[in-house]
């Protein structure tokens, strides 16, 4: 493997890890943060009949998970093309 090719691969991998880190931070904050750790504070806020912490634990976190994966798919497809490692 030429060193140029290797450093291109390394750049792709770094960009991948950066995206991963960002998305997993959101994943953690929404589920473990809003759904578990900070619920007592959030439950004092009410949206319709839902205490907010309860809503995050039983609804909001799941919606966020779905959106996160589709954002990941979209960004990774772009990243694959940019670094020219996409499939035919």
């Amino acid at each position, binding site marked *: 493997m030429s060193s140029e090719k290797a450093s291109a691969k390394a750049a792709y991998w770094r960009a991948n890890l950066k995206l991963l880190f960002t998305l997993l931070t959101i994943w953690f904050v929404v589920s473990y943060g809003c759904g578990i750790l900070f619920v007592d504070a959030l*439950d004092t806020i009410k949206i319709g009949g839902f205490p907010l912490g309860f809503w995050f634990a039983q609804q909001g976190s799941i919606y966020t998970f779905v959106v996160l994966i589709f954002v990941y798919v979209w960004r990774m497809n772009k990243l694959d093309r940019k670094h020219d*490692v996409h499939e035919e």
Partner: protein
Amino acid sequence: MDTQVLVYIIVGATFALYIGIAIWSRAGSTSEYYVASKGVHPIANGMATGADWMSAASFISMAGIISFVGRDGSVYLMGWTGGYVLLAMCLAPYLRKFGKFTVPEFVGERYYSQAARMVAVVCVIFISFTYVAGQMRGVGIVFSRYLEVDINLGVMIGMGIVFIYAVLGGMKGITYTQVAQYCVMILAYMIPAIFISILVTGNPIPQIGFGDTVQGTDTYLLDKLNQISIDLGFAEYTSGSKSTIDTFAITLALMVGTAGLPHVIVRFFTVPKVSDARLSAGWALLFIAILYTTAPAVASFARLNLVQTVNNAEYQQLPGWFQNWENAGLLAWQDKNGDGKIQYSAGAAFAGKPDFASDQRGASGERMLTNAPTEGANELYVDRDIMVLANPEIAQLPGWVVALIAAGGLAAALSTAAGLLLVISTSISHDLLKSNLMPNISEKQELLAARIAAAAAIAVAGYFGINPPGFVAQVVAFAFGLAAASFFPAIIMGIFYKRMNKEGAIAGMLTGLIFTFSYIVYFKFVNPAANTPEHWWFGISPEGIGTLGMVFNFVVSTVVAKMTAEPPAHIQDLVEDIRVPRGAVAPVAGH
């Protein structure tokens, strides 16, 4: 038409559909049998993954559990969906690029070790059998209640159906059957949920409805449930009673366990491209989320309906469903104060599970129990599973909706059972026989071995369905805990930490496994009396201990890897290679 006739028609029609699909898509090669030739469209794979993942526990039990524990039930909702984010981002695309058939195969090749592969095979088989026994039991319960056949005959019919499409069709047959089963399952879940949401709150979208006001009043449904719960002596519905650290640990163990479950991972080997593996994880979670966001709504509606229908009602005035479920043994009433009315409140009505005195009836016509009554005022025993199964009847929905629930419950149980059985048979034929004990068998012989292994696994699973070991419910914690503590760290580090070597991975897996296994065995079997928060390590229950096992695994394997030689160059190249999508190919049969 009579509900009973409708049940036969709808369940019969869905079975005919599954068998038809199996015959149309039967497998001819090991690649078709193991991974459907990697030709499955991401949306179809997403549906199949959804059906594979959502078992009898998700379909029948989950809403019931939430119904009774309220806020604490969130651990299942978040735990069983959040793992897909990890799967999509950290596992699925790389394992697809790796391009082999099974999880033990990845572990074995990445860690250049047959021993590591064997540890993985044992875990796969153990986890899958734990899971599949519960599915067969679910099939039996649905059959006995709705089709009025004996529970054992029900299990055998279920075995026969799974046998036809798993043994014939392999992964290809299972995938397309699961697509059909997903559709049946989601219709069966959503239609009653929408009806009940309209009945209770006037809002046709259950996800919004359970944050709405109760029909004809200004009170929010959740506020009303909180009020009722307190009045009857339960904890407030929207407040939890589990400690924060335990909630955290259980949620994480379930998420990581989900991402490490072999029958889920293997589904991402079936798509044509790496980018399809990412995409199909997204579709899978979307399809799963439809049911998972509806479940807490169903839970709250069911809770309200149940309490309002039975509390302080005269037994003889109750609608017919009460006696049906009493006859099925999932409801029981002990008239402690002899007033002919049902008093429902917190606490057990009597010690243990209901033990009916054969044919004896009490003063109001209820089934007599031999259980010793407790001191408390509560007179009613409710099995959590009926919250979904009986919900349409409690809400007085038409007969075809009831029939649909029966078909949906069966679809959920059968689809998961088939996926698990395939994983078991693949582990035996591919990881045990072909790669270890009998490396010289031809592809045709390997395929035959896979089919024989699947048939044998069905027989064993059926046996456990008919003679359920008393510990089935308790061992579910095993499946997730062990997957979290063994596979997940080994696979993650295999991809993200190039320096991880054989010694580190094996030491880590063994540490995670032995620790998690011992902790669960100690609190569930050796000393169940000590299974209380003050005895738990850091306040973490056996259900959540996989989280700690996972942490130990990560730490031990990293330390050991640092102290031993780095992995050989070709393994480091392999890791470089799986990190890049380009060049993914369909695997050749055999090796």
